[in-house]
């Protein structure tokens, strides 16, 4: 899981296991505590994949209901939150598949214009990746989720599964039922499209043809949030 952890992970997992043990024996309040501890992370993953808030809410609740039904099967081989997130992302992908139209989706072939569209280094320069600084930037969060919502569902899903749930190429291939090579190219396209959408927010025009001078130009770029 790639969410920033506020509580030491091992301590939280130990607490989760204790709650799971109580919930297995029928303690409803223990199960409620488990839900409360991970509900926002589960919702965040579901929202990232399905993009619709109400559907994400429903998928998140369904994930916890399924978890409750299969508590006896939970052996503690992974953390409780990993288990819930896995179920939630499965349900979210299933929800997408049910809603999928028959329209042909764009291909995952890689071409030169795709490289240019990504805008090399624009995000890193324009936004930075300091979590503490950016966490406070509500506007950025809104732009990020809006950009994510504009991606085709297959790109949205793979990006969230990779960057938020933290799945490996192998796990992505298995979860999405696509070859590993397609995982890599689809991830590239998803990132490229996301970066292209965020370029407007950053307010920078890339100069992909001028690679040698690009870093210097980017270093001098004025950040939108600095004004």
């Amino acid at each position: 899981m790639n969410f920033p952890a506020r509580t030491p992970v091992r301590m939280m997992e130990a607490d989760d296991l204790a709650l799971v043990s109580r919930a297995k024996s029928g303690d409803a309040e223990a199960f409620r505590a488990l839900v409360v501890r991970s509900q926002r992370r589960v919702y965040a993953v579901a929202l990232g994949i399905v993009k619709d808030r109400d559907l994400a809410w429903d998928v998140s609740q369904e994930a916890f209901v399924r978890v409750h039904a299969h508590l006896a099967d939970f052996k503690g081989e992974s953390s409780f939150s990993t288990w819930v997130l896995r179920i939630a992302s499965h349900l979210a992908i299933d929800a997408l598949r049910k809603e999928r139209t028959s329209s042909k989706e764009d291909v995952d072939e890689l071409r030169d214009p795709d490289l240019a569209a990504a805008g090399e280094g624009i995000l890193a320069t324009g936004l930075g990746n300091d979590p503490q600084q950016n966490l406070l930037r509500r506007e950025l969060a809104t732009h990020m989720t809006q950009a994510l919502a504009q991606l085709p569902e297959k790109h949205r899903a793979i990006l969230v599964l990779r960057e938020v749930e933290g799945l490996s190429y192998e796990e992505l291939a298995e979860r999405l039922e696509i070859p590993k090579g397609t995982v890599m190219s689809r991830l590239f396209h998803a990132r490229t499209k996301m970066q292209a959408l965020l370029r407007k927010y950053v307010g920078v025009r890339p100069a992909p043809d001028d690679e040698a001078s690009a870093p210097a130009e980017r270093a001098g770029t004025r950040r939108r949030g600095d004004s």
Partner: protein
Amino acid sequence: MNPCLRFAPMIGARPGELPDEDARALAEHLAACSACRARAADGDTLAALLSQALLAEANARDFSTFSDEVLARIPAYRDAAAGRRGTSARPTDGFWAWIRHHRFATAMGTLVPALAAVAIVIYVGRGEGPGPDDVLVQVTAEGSATVLDTSDGPVVLFGEDEPAGT
């Protein structure tokens, strides 16, 4: 072919996700290509910000009713699951449930031996030797006997040891 086209999809791979040869080639390319280094930096930024952005969206929503709604949904799911499994706990339910789920196998398992038995009866009936027509039921004053007429003479199947008239 632009070498960046080959390496761009590999950018962002975690240790061990690429074959060693590809990982080495990517590292060499990144060392030489500022554009791909910039792409890698963008990917890192996106990864760092995306989960924060989604969590910020989640934090902006009121979750005060969420756990109550989850707990309220559990009985309905449990009932539905029980309905799928069958609500009775009789020991024979497993057998009948299996029969319901394997209708074709059950039908074939019943039909094939029955057809085989019919085929054997027909085959035996058409073969040489004593057939049904050769079986006689003789009724005498002492009782009845079923007699099979063979080339070795009459054989009493049921009844008196000696058939009538012998």
